[in-house]
């Protein structure tokens, strides 16, 4: 078998030499110019005429490089590789006779330098075509599923829509009722607690009086020692308030001048990348949690369960003035940093920095809290998700794992824990009722968006199969997340995120998704995000980048983009290729005979 391939190759070379007996590297489309009539050659553009013997004499005479199709003499020359058995190629003259095999037939280098790999290249091409076809067929099957999922989703919404107003009102009423109940029980409890407090205060006052008398006595005996001790203590306190940076803090601060990338700037060994380590993935998911919450914070109705959190009200209460003061704080904090950092702030927009600062504060709070109760809330959340309108397609498992398992869910857990008391019991009920209400709200939103929102879901509503889903593309430093029909964000590490656009629609050919009107960008205007879509086996967002300032882009593949015509095209290509291969083999065989 191998022997026969080698034979074919040799035969191919021989064929090559026979057919191409005159001018090396000549593009057959231009052959008419190289007839050699009158012993002259006229440069294809420019009109200069030279003796024909100067064609391919390894000296550039024509400004357009046309006198040297087969040498490297002209800076702008083009060399034609015939690549028999594969596809022809026009090569830069610069790559001719440079010691590198660029053409699969090896014709760009001196004989013997390169082996002919055209048949292998062709075979590889054939195999990849075959595998493409197989994948395409599978993708088209998935596409059919998408269409039925989209239809089912729409139907479900329509069913819900009939009773949504009543369901919502009922849920609201239940919340109000339980709230009143909680208030009543709390009032009762506080009366009781006040009485207990009063008794405790009286007891304590009596104790303190006795202690003061004893201390006075002691100080008289001890002289000035007590004073000295107090002063030292005070100094110590002062020193710790104004304490200098630790060496590590200083190192980190200086490192952060160069980059905002925590990985680049000396990560602690517990967090850094370890090639074989197990811990790393967890760390990253943990980071992911923070950013995920950030999204919860700014964007409601993302189809995710929304847990109560202790700092939420405080967050929303931040006024514009406070935002400004936070910004001033950032500026002060960065006073010791350089102009570059400030410039970065302005390039990215001040708003981002304010948000990032808030996020950092929140993280500090979270880090201080324990992880107790996470398991339980996670379980509850899953239950609740199940009760909400099902997303049209199941979420990928990876995203499920990265649900926020946050300390903010603690209060809920605490309430549940003491459900034995009457107040605790009612609070737990209220908690559930509030969740039901939020789900009803979300259903309302879904109905408004997907039923009455006048959105374009493409042919056969295919893109409705992607509703309620977000896709992420993680680059070295930035993560891009696109939530179709909603918005797209870019995240930096795990602390900062910026909205790069809100849903604007598909292009008319459904080959592009557009998100526009994102967060303001210094000197540019609102951010925008353009996603080029193509057929693929799975829904995958990739290649997120910022090709121009604040104009972001990514690629998205999905079975939804696949169509029968392209499959037919691929099948035709394969058929043509196979026919071509047969033809070449036959030709070779005939020449052999």
């Amino acid at each position, binding site marked *: 078998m191998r022997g026969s391939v080698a034979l074919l190759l040799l035969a191919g070379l021989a064929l090559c030499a026979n057919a191409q007996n005159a001018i090396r590297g000549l593009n057959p489309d231009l052959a008419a110019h190289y007839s050699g009539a009158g012993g002259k050659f006229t440069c294809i553009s420019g009109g200069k005429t030279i003796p024909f013997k100067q064609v391919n004499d390894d000296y550039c005479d024509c400004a357009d490089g046309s006198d040297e199709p087969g040498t490297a003499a002209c800076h702008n020359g083009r060399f034609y590789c015939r690549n028999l058995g594969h596809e022809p190629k026009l090569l830069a003259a610069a790559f001719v006779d440079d010691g590198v095999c660029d053409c699969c037939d090896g014709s760009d280098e001196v004989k013997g330098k390169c082996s002919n790999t055209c048949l292998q290249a062709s075979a590889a091409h054939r195999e990849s075509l075959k595998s493409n076809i197989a994948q395409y067929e599978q993708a088209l099957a998935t596409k059919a599923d998408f269409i039925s999922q989209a239809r089912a989703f729409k139907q479900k919404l329509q069913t819900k829509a009939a009773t949504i107003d009543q369901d919502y009102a009922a849920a609201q009423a239940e919340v109000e009722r339980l709230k009143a109940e909680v208030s009543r029980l709390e009032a009762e409890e506080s009366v009781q607690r006040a009485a207990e407090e009063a008794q405790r205060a009286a007891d304590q006052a009596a104790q303190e009086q006795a202690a003061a008398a004893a201390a006075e006595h002691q100080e008289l005996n001890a002289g000035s020692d007590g004073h000295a001790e107090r002063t030292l203590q005070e100094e110590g306190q002062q020193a710790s308030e104004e304490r200098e940076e630790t060496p590590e803090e*200083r190192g980190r601060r200086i490192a952060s001048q160069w980059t905002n990338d925590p990985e680049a700037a000396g990560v602690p060994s517990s967090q850094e990348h370890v090639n074989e380590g197990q811990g790393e993935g967890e760390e990253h998911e943990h980071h992911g949690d923070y950013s995920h919450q950030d999204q919860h914070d700014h964007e409601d109705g993302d189809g995710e369960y929304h847990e109560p959190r202790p700092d939420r009200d405080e967050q929303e209460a931040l006024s514009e003035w406070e935002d400004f003061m936070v910004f001033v704080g950032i500026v002060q904090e960065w006073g010791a940093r350089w102009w570059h950092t400030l410039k970065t702030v302005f390039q990215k927009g001040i708003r981002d920095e304010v948000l990032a600062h808030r996020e950092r504060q929140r993280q500090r709070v979270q880090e201080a809290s324990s992880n107790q109760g996470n398991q339980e809330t996670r379980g509850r959340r899953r239950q609740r998700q199940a009760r909400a309108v099902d997303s049209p397609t199941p979420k990928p498992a990876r995203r499920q794992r990265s649900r926020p398992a946050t300390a903010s869910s603690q209060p809920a857990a605490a309430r549940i824990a003491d459900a034995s008391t009457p107040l605790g019991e009612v609070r737990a009920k209220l908690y559930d009722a509030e969740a039901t209400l939020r789900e009803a709200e979300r259903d309302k939103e879904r109905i408004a968006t997907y039923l009455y929102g006048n959105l374009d879901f493409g042919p056969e509503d295919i893109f409705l199969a992607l509703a309620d889903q977000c896709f992420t593309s993680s680059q070295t430093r930035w993560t891009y997340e696109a939530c179709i029909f909603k918005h797209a964000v870019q995240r930096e590490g795990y602390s900062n995120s910026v909205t790069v656009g809100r849903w604007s629609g598909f292009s008319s050919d459904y080959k592009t998704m557009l998100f526009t009107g994102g967060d303001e960008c210094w000197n540019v205007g609102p951010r925008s995000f353009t996603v080029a879509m193509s057929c693929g086996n799975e829904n995958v967002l990739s290649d997120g980048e910022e090709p121009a300032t604040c104009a972001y882009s990514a690629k998205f593949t999905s079975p939804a983009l696949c169509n029968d015509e392209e499959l037919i095209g691929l099948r035709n290509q394969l058929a043509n290729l196979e026919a071509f291969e047969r033809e070449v083999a036959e030709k070779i065989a005939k020449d052999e005979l």
Partner: protein
Amino acid sequence: MRRAIALGVGLALLGLLLPGSLAFKENEFKKCAQTSFCSRNRNVQQGANFEIVPASVTLNTATLTATLMNKQASKHLQLTLTAHADGFVRLLIDELPSVGRYQVPSDILVSGWETRKAAIKEESRSANGVVLVTGDTKLELNYAPFTLAVSVKGVPALQLNSRNLFNFEHRRPKQDSDPAGYWEETWMGHTDTKPKGPEAMSLDLVFPGFSHVYGIPERATSLSLKATNGNAPYGEPYRLYNLDVFEYLDDHPFGLYGSIPVMLAHKKGLTVGVYWNNAAEMFVDVVKGRDVGTQWIAESGVVDLFVFTGATGPAVLASYAKVAGTTALPQLFSLGYHQCRWNYKDEADVKAVDGGFDAHEIPYDVLWLDIEHTNGKRYLTWDSSLFPNPVAMQEDVASRGRKMVTIVDPHVKRDSSYYIFSEAESAGHYVKNKHGSDFDGWCWPGQSSYLDVTSPVVRNWWAQQFTTDKYQGSTKHLYIWNDMNEPSVFNGPEITMHKDNLHYGNVEHRDNHNLFGVYYHMGTADGLKLRGSQVDPENGDRPFVLSRAFFSGTQRVGPIWTGDNAAQWSHLKVSVPMLLTLGLTGLPYSGADVGGFFGNPDAELMTRWYQLGIYYPFFRGHAHLETQRREPWLFGPDVTARIRAAIRGRYALLPHIYTLFRAANTTGQPILRPLWFEFPEQEDLYAEEEEFMVGSSMLVKPVTAPSTFTVDVTFPQGSRWYDATTGAPVPPKTKTQRVEVNLNGIPVYYRGGSVVPRRERPRRSTAAQLADPYTLVVAADDKGEAEGQLYVDDGRSFAFQRGLYLHRDFKFSGNKLTSTKHVEPGVPDGTLTVPTTIERVVFLGLPAAKKGYKAVISDGVSGAKHTVALEAGPLSMAAAPDSTQALVLRKPDLPVSHDWTVEIVQV
């Protein structure tokens, strides 16, 4: 709305902060007034305390010795003055008896010069002085006060202590009455204990009758050094203390990553160079009046001053090179274009960028990987998730003739599971803190220790880490980049090491701080040399290691770059005086990051930077982690075409550039030269820094501002000039002429009298150019004459040291162009022959001939002759295909290895 308010407020605050942000930067670093040894010596007149003891003056052939007394302190110093055959005198002053003050180790300089001495004759002696003569140089030593005056052929060259600013602080016991700062000093929370107390020195050096001094890199400032008694920031002395300066400013006296204590002064007929061979922190003041006065204050060490004199700059640099050595001949690939970025993130990225150059037909030679390629900043390892197959990756890049570079920094992550750390720890290879335990500082990997490369034992161990069996995932195609070797210590004083840290031989870091960088660089280069000797035992492989920190002698090791510049026009502009200064101080192989490291250059800045960068001796594009991608093809097709043309222009000029590197290698001459260096008699060029010469034959005027449509080019007098694109002669009108420019290029001119070898075929890399024929550009001067050279060798090994090289002299005179063998005194004869030919000779500036010219070509070997007509045509098919300014000899196929003659005859 909220956003709008925040934005508005931000704008207002920005306005307030802008001027302040500059001040912040300065506050991070010490000024003279905040530095005890500087403030207690700057402008302090105590030189009159020092007197020569007359009876002690002894002259012994080439050496004068004398006792120098600090009469106030009754302290004796030993003064030694030696004349050397290589055109310099050396002045040594140390304590008497010796107290073991630090002296720069001899391996920082070359060997051999010490024994090549020149006789000193005593011309006259009086009660208060002695006059000595060596060659053309006269030395007048005055006893009380102690002064030394140097003159050459009666022209004053240098005066020592004429401003009464000399000082030499001797070692002393600690006393309660000692001023603050003698024994301890605190800066921003760091306390420097000074167990040896004060030991600074002040040198008072006046250049009489000079107006311009140059040198003492590295800093971003003018070529001709400004006075330091001016307005801020030029009220501060220039500082020589290798530091990692974040976002350095483009016009400031503070010192950057490297130090070379060399200063040149030039006036008509005389160039003077001084070198203080001292590696401690140093401040240098410059004052200007009828003379240029300078005061040099160093914290520790001894006075070891070299004074070089010559009629011109080249003579002085040749003389300095006899002491500090010449530029190591680089591998040819390293003179191609380098593509770098913090960071090319993984193997797919490397493949895409490498492929991008071929797809856009842009030549390049080296792809670089910054710190993110490592496993957690453990140098000499790979992040296996991003680079699972580093060997295959390098082999793939190398299959197209290219190389790769990885970064290796001197901080070693403190992690006992990291083999480099644990091996070095158990062998005791780290710098110690003042308590004698391994110093623990913070850098990219977090907690780090620093290899004590000042020890030859450590350097030897370090060198062994670079063999391909030791450096896992490396191949012979991989070269090295040393960054952060000032050393940078993020949590140290001024982002470097504590001065009371201890090195090999119990030397304080204070004494050898400025040597750390060159020693690390040296150890790494030794490693690649070792690897090369394994790969090719017969000829070896010349090391390529880029360094950021440097000192005198770095030129023998490898190139440096000017560190973390910014994507600003001002940084583009200041790169020229920065690189010219490095060339004038013996370190010509250097470059600035094209595009600017910090920030995002726009297409115009990018274009102009490439158009200038192709003349940088070291030519690399680089960018910060948080910048947009900026590979040459990302700015639209027009910009890609311009950058392509620029980079191809670099490759076309490589025969000339490589030949210039050979001159740097043999005689210490710079690649880029200030105009005064080539035109030493034209005083109005002494401060010119907006244009420069490439060797002696090309003049380059970079465009350094946006939206530029015309530039004023100064054409030095006495030479003809030809536009290097079209070949058109510059009309001999005024010295400065307004020239129109467009985005396609910057003004570049051939100097009449030059022959410049080129290779016009735009290949993908230097390796792919190897067999290509040459073009010679012959630009005639007023007498119709020209000369030039071509140096060729294998471009990679040390075989040239055995004579395996080809060096030709081209001379055009009396209408005859000849090629003869170039003979260089002191180097073995070239014996290499190559089959390469000259495919094209282009004559510029031949007088008009009615019927034109023909060329009669005689083969020097066979004596056979044949005749070819010369045609009016373009200087270059690529740059100006339609121009007819040149007379072109078509395809003479002259062998570069042999003698031949081409005679130009009117038809």
